[in-house]
């Protein structure tokens, strides 16, 4: 009796969020889904009748296939770099003295507090042909010609990593601080030195954190369009940019909708696989 009343109360607490998401996320998505099946005339005006042709176009045109492939590839690379860089940062966060921890947390999330435009301009200033990095490298005679660091995929990945790093650090730090301190002691007394202890205890026990981080970073990296637009240029073969072009320049909204849904399904698939691994692992370790 009491339990059901409590459940009802939880329902009341959730209601505002659910209503909001229903109106502003679910309904538009349904509209978009319908749109992606609608036929267009020669001027890309929506006309009566439904068709699979937009999906067939996305999945058979070589340019779009290459774009899909590139999008996933960049997202994977970004995820891997983020995880590798996040690990030491998470370690520092967890091991730092309590009074420093808040400071490190703020430092860590500071990229998220900056507007994407400002952040991206900073990268342009740093990476441009006459930018700071090239200047320093030239002045110190490490290179003779300025490096091409902007308006390409590398720039996109660098900018992604910067802004998405906190999403990788936080879950790893959480998983790390959940490891009981005497597991490391137990490992050491059983003859493992610090490095062996890291690979046999710390690393495996932070797998859930890494998977959670990977899910967030991957889906963000696969779906962003402002960052690649600003530091990569609009010609980069990335699906979000193609969608942007279809909407803003070609005005083929149903094709854009089909691309958007293709991207969404691909991201969902990756997340589902990662989620399945995470679930498996947690059942194994925690029951």
């Amino acid at each position, binding site marked *: 009796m009491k339990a059901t009343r409590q459940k009802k109360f939880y329902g009341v607490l959730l209601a505002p969020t659910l209503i909001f998401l229903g109106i502003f996320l679910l309904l538009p998505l349904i509209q978009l889904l319908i749109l992606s099946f609608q036929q267009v005339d020669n001027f890309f005006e929506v006309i009566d009748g439904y068709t699979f042709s937009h999906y067939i176009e996305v999945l058979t045109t070589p340019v779009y296939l290459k774009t899909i492939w590139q999008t996933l590839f960049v997202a994977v690379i970004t995820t891997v770099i983020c995880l590798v860089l996040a690990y030491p940062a998470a370690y520092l966060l967890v091991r730092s003295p309590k009074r420093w921890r808040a400071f490190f947390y703020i430092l860590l999330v500071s990229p998220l507090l900056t507007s994407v435009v400002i952040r991206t301009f900073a990268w342009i200033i740093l990476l441009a042909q006459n930018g700071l990095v090239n200047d320093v490298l030239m002045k110190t005679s490490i290179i003779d010609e300025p490096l091409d660091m902007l308006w390409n995929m590398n720039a996109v990945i660098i900018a992604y990593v910067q802004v998405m790093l906190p999403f990788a650090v936080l879950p790893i730090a959480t998983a790390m601080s959940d490891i*009981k301190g*005497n*597991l490391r*002691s*137990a*490992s*050491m*007394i*059983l*003859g*493992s*030195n610090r490095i*062996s202890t890291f690979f*046999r*205890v710390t690393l*495996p*026990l932070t797998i859930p954190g890494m998977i959670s981080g990977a899910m967030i970073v991957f889906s963000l990296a696969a779906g962003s369009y402002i960052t690649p637009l600003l530091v990569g240029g609009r010609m980069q073969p990335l699906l979000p940019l193609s969608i942007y072009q279809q909407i803003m320049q070609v005005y083929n909204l149903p094709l854009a909708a089909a691309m958007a849904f293709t991207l969404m399904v691909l991201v969902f698939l990756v997340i589902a696989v990662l989620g399945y691994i995470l679930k498996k*692992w947690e059942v*194994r*370790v*925690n*029951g």
Partner: protein
Amino acid sequence: MSGIKLEGISLDYGNHFALKEVELEIKQGEFFSLLGPSGCGKSTLLNIIAGFLGQTTGVVYIGDQDVTNIPPYKRNLGMVFQNYALFPHLSVRDNVAYGLKNKKMSKQDIKQKVDESLALVQLESYATRMPHQLSGGQQQRVAIARALAIEPNVLLLDEPLSNLDAKLRKEMQFELRRIQKSVGITTVLVTHDQEEALSLSDRIGILGDGVLQQVGEPLEVYRRPANRFVAEFIGQVNIFDAVLSEGTVYETTAGFKLEAERHESGKQPNRVRFMLRPERIFVEQHVSGEDTANRVKAVVKESSYIGNAIRIRTEAGGIELAVHAPDPMFPVLPAPGQELVLSWKKEDIIYLEVLDHESN
């Protein structure tokens, strides 16, 4: 397998000493308990033996090797932790094999050793389980098997039973003693549970405020505590400060008389602190006669029943006396206000501290 020798171990945290000049020799094959209240330094001392903490001064020998500068992973010790510290991502078998894999043993040897170790703790059929599928007692046994599998020089137990419920704790104590005897390994147990220390150990070291207060066999530390701290920490105790009246008869501050045996120095000290264990006091319910030495009238203040005994708080001459009477003594619990006569033998009056040697 080896013994342990601690020479002048101190740990100085600048503003206070966690350990002060600890001298201790633990014999090979001995079951030794470090007993003390929380914060007394017993876990600190264990962590120094294990190598997780470095002492400020002093030397730790394991066997005849000075291990002061040897890291924990090279000391070849077995250790069991309070919350078991099983690796949650590894099966029981892989937990037990963990230390063996560091020893460059063949797969077959590892398997055999794991089976042996699990047999020792009677968990052969649990090898494929994950730690979360085991009860607390079973997890603790796996932890013991894991610690012993590497054939360590010494077994260190850091409050291993304190997370178990009372009944299971008793079983595991018995089990621990059985395993320790069958392996014959030098064992150091850290505990705050005096009963556990008394029932398991060959010898006990009582730590208080970072100082090793007394080292001795269970009987010795309970019956002949070295000082007031030890007396009060192990079991309940009545303590009297008394002044010599004549011969070996003393008068307590409460006004009743105690007769003790001759002091071991041959000369009776003038002022003495005595102790008397509550279970050494006889209770008579029929009040008669006058107070004499070692016999005093008392009034019940409160009594409680603990099954095999009745604990009575009494008041005699303005001070409180704790008495433990055997269960069959009272058909009903003595009521507050009831008068009793308490008496004891003079050999149960123990000299705890000499406060003043000068005789008048």
